């Protein structure tokens, strides 16, 4: 597995540097990177991708915290088993592949989609055209929607065991001291969660920054997110686009490495912390 993974990256790196086994000629060059860095299209794609990934991560984490708070309420008001059951329900969207999620969002939210038809038939909107444009628009709302729907259960899944670790005695002690549900969550549960939440959010960010299917189905013709832009280069007629496509992929990887370094610096040395779940 490791060999395939790193071998693939290495091969991509070589290709992006002009050492393509397929093209036959081998000149070590940074020309592909130079073209990208001065290219307006590349930076438009880059910032679009960054914006979509950041907003998705933020919304996904927020929604996950809200879900966790709800699970926490169920946990302290009724019982453990019930909250486990609800937690399972939250995970339903994890069963679907991303491409299915994207297609479902498309079917539901396109101007002539299910939701628009339901609203139209119920008389809430006067015509399909008055339904807001959610899919295939330059901001990428539908892409964000698909990512949030898919990734927030993932964060819940990672953080939920912490809720089970909260012991009844702590809650009773807090109540005796006069704390309500929300202060208990804020003061006891949430501090336990911050570190795993940061990790989970970083995973979500890294995924949404590099993923392909959702923006391919729900994105606009121009500008495209980096993965789709790279795919477009790669799949163009002859093989001449391959090195450039690989250069884009390496740039994506590079951006994620920088983000990863930034993440580990700002959060301190991760492996020595004791509050990992």
């Amino acid at each position: 597995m490791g060999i395939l993974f790193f071998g693939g990256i290495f091969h991509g790196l070589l290709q992006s540097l002009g050492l393509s086994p397929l093209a036959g000629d081998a000149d070590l060059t940074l020309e592909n990177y130079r073209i990208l860095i001065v290219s307006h299209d590349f930076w438009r794609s880059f910032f679009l991708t960054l914006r979509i990934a950041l907003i998705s991560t933020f919304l996904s984490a927020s929604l996950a915290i809200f879900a966790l708070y709800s699970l926490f309420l169920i946990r302290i008001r009724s019982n453990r088993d019930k909250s486990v059951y609800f937690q399972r329900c939250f995970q339903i969207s994890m069963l679907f592949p991303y491409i299915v999620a994207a297609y479902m969002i498309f079917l539901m939210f396109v101007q002539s989609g299910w939701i628009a038809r339901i609203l139209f038939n119920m008389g809430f909107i006067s015509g399909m055209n008055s339904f807001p444009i959610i899919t295939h628009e330059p901001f990428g709302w539908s892409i964000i929607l698909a990512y949030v729907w898919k990734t927030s259960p993932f964060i819940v899944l990672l953080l939920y065991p912490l809720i089970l670790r909260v012991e009844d005695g702590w809650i009773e002690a807090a109540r005796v001291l006069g704390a309500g549900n929300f202060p208990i969550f804020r003061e006891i549960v949430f501090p336990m969660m911050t570190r795993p939440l940061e990790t989970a959010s970083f995973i979500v960010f890294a995924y949404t920054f590099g993923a392909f299917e959702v923006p391919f189905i729900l994105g606009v013709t121009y500008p495209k997110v980096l993965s789709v832009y790279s795919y477009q280069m790669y799949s163009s007629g002859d093989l001449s686009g391959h090195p450039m496509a690989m250069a884009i992929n390496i740039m994506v990887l590079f951006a994620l490495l920088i983000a990863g370094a930034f993440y580990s610096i700002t959060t301190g040395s991760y492996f020595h912390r004791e509050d990992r779940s």
Partner: protein
Amino acid sequence: MGLPYQGNAGGDMMNCKLLLIIILFLILSMAPGAVTGNEIDLLALPWEEIEAIASGQTVHMYMWGGNNGTNNFIDQWIAPRLKERYHISLERVPVTDIREMIIKILTEKQMGKSTGSADILWINGENFRLAMEKGLLWAPFTFILPNYMRYVDPSADDLNMDFGKATEGYEAPWGKAQFVMICNSEFVPIPPDTMEELAEFIMENPGRFTYPSPPDFTGSCFIRQVILAKTSGPGNHSSKEGSEDAPGRRSEAWNFLNDLKPCLWRQGRTYPETVGILDQLYSNGEVWFTMNYNPLHAFNKISQGSFPESSRTFLFRNGTFSNTHYLTIPFNAKSKAGALVAIDLFLSPEGQFEKLKPHVWGDGIVLDPSRMDPEQRRILEDIGSGPSSLSPEILAMKRIPEFSSQEIESIEKEWLEEVGKK
């Protein structure tokens, strides 16, 4: 001192020569040429012997697997007959893009791997060009296929030229596709006859038309139809005149498409990424037109219940692009004899008629009806379709050969700059 030295020198020379001969022999026996030599002999054998060699072989056919009709035709019609008549097992290997397989074979060639995984490839256009340029195809083989020799018109340019590249017998034509437009007759009672009429309709009914953005194959073809309408009159076009549509002359087409923009779906700010998305918008009633490279697409979609019954197929007066798709054998195929026998069955009249049936696949035939006997011609005429489709005669009258694949690529890139980004 001199003599022994000379003697030694003579001995060394002898040894050198011997070594050279051995090395040469080794090189010759290792060179792919030697292997190919044996297989070219296969093509010198009488057909019965090829059939005998093919018996018991397993043939791996790599093909785009995205069409159920095509897949079922191969699994349920071709494969059982190959097994029964020739004891050949046909394994269909679906791929999402045959380009991946071409690149795999290219890698196999560079690594010197003389036995590959594929025996038959389903290709055309730029993939064929790439495979030819890199020397990935086996040999000219069509002349040995009995059905090819009997039923295919050897001088038909739409078969011999694959997107502007001469096939030279390295691939056998299998079927034909043609670009068609589809509209919902409930909203579009009279289908437009020309690009100008279409533009007029779009201007009068804003928001009801769009086309997939390249590199989607169908969207790219619509753009070529626009270029055709704008740069040359009817009948002026030939795929062999490669530089006919010099970039400067395309500007009129880009102006036309840009002028249409405000009246397109989403004011032309974005385009459907694939023809599948366009079909979905059409099914939903959000747009009134769609398009396809399969003339029976509307018929099939109506049968599946996803298109409205009122869907109609139409063409432009000056014709629509058509292309041929082919079967070929890679240089390192393991079961070349089996592949030849299978391809011959694909070209048999019964195999061609079966795949023409709308409920099977609806793919056009490559055989020349004038070479068939009357009984076969009668069967051919009986294969019809519903009111949503056009007859094969009308389609044939309006057929235009495709641009060359390099030209298509440059058009796609230019569209993105001149239209897509604006």
